[in-house]
């Protein structure tokens, strides 16, 4: 077990690309090695030690690496880039692109996380205690490949387009989300325990979007299917009733959009389609 603690020396005016901060990267590295790793602050490449105070606490074995980031890291980007094992704990806020291309291990952000959290994620787990920005679990612009696996849990709110182009894995948001969760979604599950600003599942081809709270309007390209008392997420059963829609028909989609019925009286128009 090896614990690497990175303490931010001071608030930074410019963005920092710290993709080096990953357990994979710190394995078999001494304090000196880690201090010497090069990161970008704006357009200057500097030693990691210029931005962070580095402390290593190890029992000699490197097989499990734990990274702590201390201080307000909201300008620090790409924490946990390509992490495949070990864990990272960000004790304050984190910047954009946390866990980009992550394939295993775990990342916990105690504060808020910036946009593109878990971008191109393939596996592993991310937990954010505060809020997250836009494009949680998305892909890079122009690709049709978002998050492919793993799990993201956000205790606060998330921004727009949660799970954009998502293929697999689960994203669970305890708070509210902005517009278009499940945009262009192809597989996996997006579960929103709070409210959603609207257009859930826009242009989705597959996968599940579940909204416990208010869903605003449902797009005209979703067909009402049935009313379900309960929805299963893994082992868990969620008490409904839920209006269940399928779509996006414009994409010949077979995605499922489930919206809590009692919280969304504006959708009761679809009850006239219930076969009795």
């Amino acid at each position: 077990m090896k614990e690497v603690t990175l303490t931010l020396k001071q608030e930074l005016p410019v963005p920092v690309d710290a993709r080096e901060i990953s357990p994979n990267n710190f394995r078999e590295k001494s304090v000196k090695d880690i201090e010497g790793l090069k990161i970008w602050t704006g357009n200057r490449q500097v030693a990691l030690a210029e931005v962070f105070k580095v402390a290593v606490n190890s029992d000699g074995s490197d097989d499990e690496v734990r990274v702590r980031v201390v201080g307000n890291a909201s300008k620090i980007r790409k924490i946990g880039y390509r992490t495949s094992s070990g864990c990272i704990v960000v004790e304050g806020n984190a910047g954009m692109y946390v866990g980009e291309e992550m394939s295993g291990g775990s990342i916990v952000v105690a504060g808020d996380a910036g946009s593109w959290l878990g971008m191109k994620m393939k596996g592993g787990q991310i937990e954010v205690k505060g809020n997250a920005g836009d494009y949680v679990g998305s892909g890079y612009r122009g690709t049709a490949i978002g998050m492919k696996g793993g799990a993201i849990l956000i205790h606060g709110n998330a921004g727009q387009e949660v799970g954009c182009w998502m293929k697999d894995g689960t994203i669970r948001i305890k708070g509210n989300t902005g517009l278009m969760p499940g945009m262009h979604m192809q597989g996996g599950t997006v579960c929103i325990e709070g409210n959603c600003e609207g257009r859930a599942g826009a242009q989705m081809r597959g996968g599940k979007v579940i909204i416990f709270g208010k869903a605003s309007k449902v797009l005209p390209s979703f067909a009402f299917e049935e009313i379900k008392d309960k929805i299963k997420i893994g082992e868990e059963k969620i008490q409904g009733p839920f209006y269940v829609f399928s779509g996006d028909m414009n994409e010949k989609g077979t995605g499922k959009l489930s919206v809590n019925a009692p919280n969304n009286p504006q959708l009761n128009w679809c009850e006239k389609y219930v076969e009795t």
Partner: protein
Amino acid sequence: MTLSKKIIPNVICTFCGATCDDLEVTVEDGKVQTLRGGCSTSLNKFVNYNVERHLTPLVKKDGKLEETSYEDAIARSAGILANAKYPILYGWSSTSNEASRAGLELAEWVGGVMDNTTTVCHGPTLLGVHDIGEVSASLGEIRQRADMIIYWGSNPVHSHPHHVMRYSALSKGRFRSSRKDRTMVVVDVRKTDTAKLADQFIQIEPNSDYELMCALRMAVRGDELEQDIIAGVPAERIEELADLMISCQFGVIFFGVGLTMTQGKHRNIDVALSLVRDLNSRTKFIIMPMRGWYNVAGANQVSAWVTGYPYAVDLSQGYPRYNPGDTTAVDVLVRGDCDAALVVASDPVSNFPVEVTRHLAKIPVITIDPHPSATSLISEVVFPTTIVGIETGGGIYRMDGVAMVTKPVVSPPPGLHSDVEILQDILTHVKKLKMGQ
């Protein structure tokens, strides 16, 4: 004494993205006297180009802008940019391609973010294109063939005054001899002056373009609409419009920032592009953004061939990186990330939310602009410059990507430099500083 008088034909208008090229400018004694063939805006631009000019560079000395030498202004600007850790270079849509070229090389040397005004007009359009693609054509195709013309969230009568006449509903084409041969529809939240020219006006609720596009895709594919009223428009009306679109020979949607700036932004475009793509399995249909400034399209083109990306290019790490929302001007400024700014042929203080201006006021700003602007008020260095298409020439791209070359109609006031000269001089100075390091 007699005044020298000449009439210059086929002048290209450097105001809006329609870049009409049939203006006739009368120059008397080195000044523009009159202009024929242009719209009222181009008339104002050409006749008043010399109002509100200042001719010497200004620099801020204890809080006040004071006149200085060109060399001093260049040296200061180079110093500011070379020392910056994350400078932004912004504007580029109301100047020549050559200026964008010089700007991109400068951005490489100073490791900055190069963004153009696309970012607050049709940036979302490009984001839509990344996901879906785009079915489009040059403007002449519409003039020659289109029998169905839709203006959606755009108001050319105000923004592109001659667009309807030159390129669409009121133009004459090989296969469309008159207005009667074309159906014109306007979709907007209010009955604009453009709507008054249309055969049909469809008024939609604000922020519901996505829903209407979505419903249209349904109708085009022949699916029944379950909801009775969508985006404030009755389902039957939507189905009628869909039938019109399917049954035309050649249709076009011209869309404006009414789509890119409202709720959904790039997804309004995404769904519009998808709708038009779908329509091509039934008939010929294309779509085109109404680009605003006369060379905003050029700023995208130059940026794309030099870096691979059309705007919002971050060169801080020595190679182009791109992710609008991260590398776009408004975001960079609102986050307070950048520590210096070069503004060329644009006025962010007049175009950006006040929060952006608040950060600009905290960092050194260099402004290159023919006229004093709200931004020059808060600048550290201000370069007056010549006006492209009036006092100096340069390459530009029309809204549909047709390259044109503008020529000067009058000579600039003595001692005034062009955007390109100023940028190249700053670049030369920056190279010296960087190589010195």
